[in-house]
């Protein structure tokens, strides 16, 4: 699943570690989500949405895989 996490993070000039601290997750997890290697659970997705004050569907894009 594609997402805009890297862009949203960059807009706020946060490092992956900064975002991980804010989410209470590991930097490894943030990295894996950003690179599309891991799709977060619903609770974590909602946490991300709350942090960026955006609806989930504006962060995670439900595009069919090629």
């Amino acid at each position, binding site marked *: 699943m594609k997402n805009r996490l890297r862009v949203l993070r960059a807009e706020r000039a946060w*490092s*992956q*570690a900064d975002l*991980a*601290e804010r989410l*209470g*997750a*590991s*930097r*490894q*997890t943030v*990295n*894996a989500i950003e*690179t599309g*290697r*891991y*799709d*977060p*659970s619903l609770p*974590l997705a909602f946490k991300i949405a709350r942090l960026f004050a955006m609806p989930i569907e504006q962060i995670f894009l439900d595009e069919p895989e090629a």
Partner: protein
Amino acid sequence: MSLSRSPAAPARARVYGYATLSACALLLVATGRPTAKALDWMAGLGVPEGLAPVLAYAAPALVLVAMMALAHVLTRKRPLVLRWAAFLLLGAVAGYVLGFCLELFAGAGGVIDWAVGPLREAGWIEIGLWMLTAVCLALAGTTAFVAVLGSAGAAAMQVEPVAPEDLDVRSYERKMMGWSAAGMAALGVACGALALARQVEVDMRAAMVIAACVGMFFNIAIGIILWRALDELQRRMVIDSYAISAIAVTAGAFIWAAASAFGVVGEIDAGLLFLALTAAQLIVAIHITAKGAPQAVGGGA
């Protein structure tokens, strides 16, 4: 965290990595004693008697670093499996040179003999347990190194280009790495004590079994502490590594059971089962951690 913000950090880290690797190779070599076979071989080549021991110490360290560098160059931008294979193959070459030139940990036998008495000769299960002990203690040492030194420690461990973000080791990671190092060290102690329990005289056996149980207890307790502190991806990786290793060992045990029906192999020793499960779990966990996220099982969907 200034290191992680610097664009030059990855390149610098690679230099630090090779310096660390060279230092480790030198430390390993320093524990050894030149073998008679190597000295005879060099004498046959006309190497002066005074120079042969120096070469016996220098050659393995140089070959180890050279093989690491060669593996890195040959496998650049190659798939992970190919990289692992190249590192294993070239590592085996370095290991052969090391074993040919030096008898490693030459003083360890005397220390063990003094501490627990004479040992019976190690069978292949005991050799496996000793190898597992060495791997666990080496992993514990390297993890503790990064836990103590943080970003500087992470930079010093890199021999490949890494993203600057990967060198940003903060207090959460350091704490987790500290626990991991302690857990790995406890597992190393358990494996070593189990190997000793199988090799010592009867009167020392109980003490070794108790030491192994204490090591295993701490390993499990630390595992629980770590599990509670892990986030969802890390827990997923732990589950995946246990699942894959359980499938592999179950398949292996089934094949063994089938072969034993024909009398081709003997009965499975409990020590062998522990060794196989622990080794498989360790290898899979290292592989999954190196990949960075679960893909093989579930794919994070």
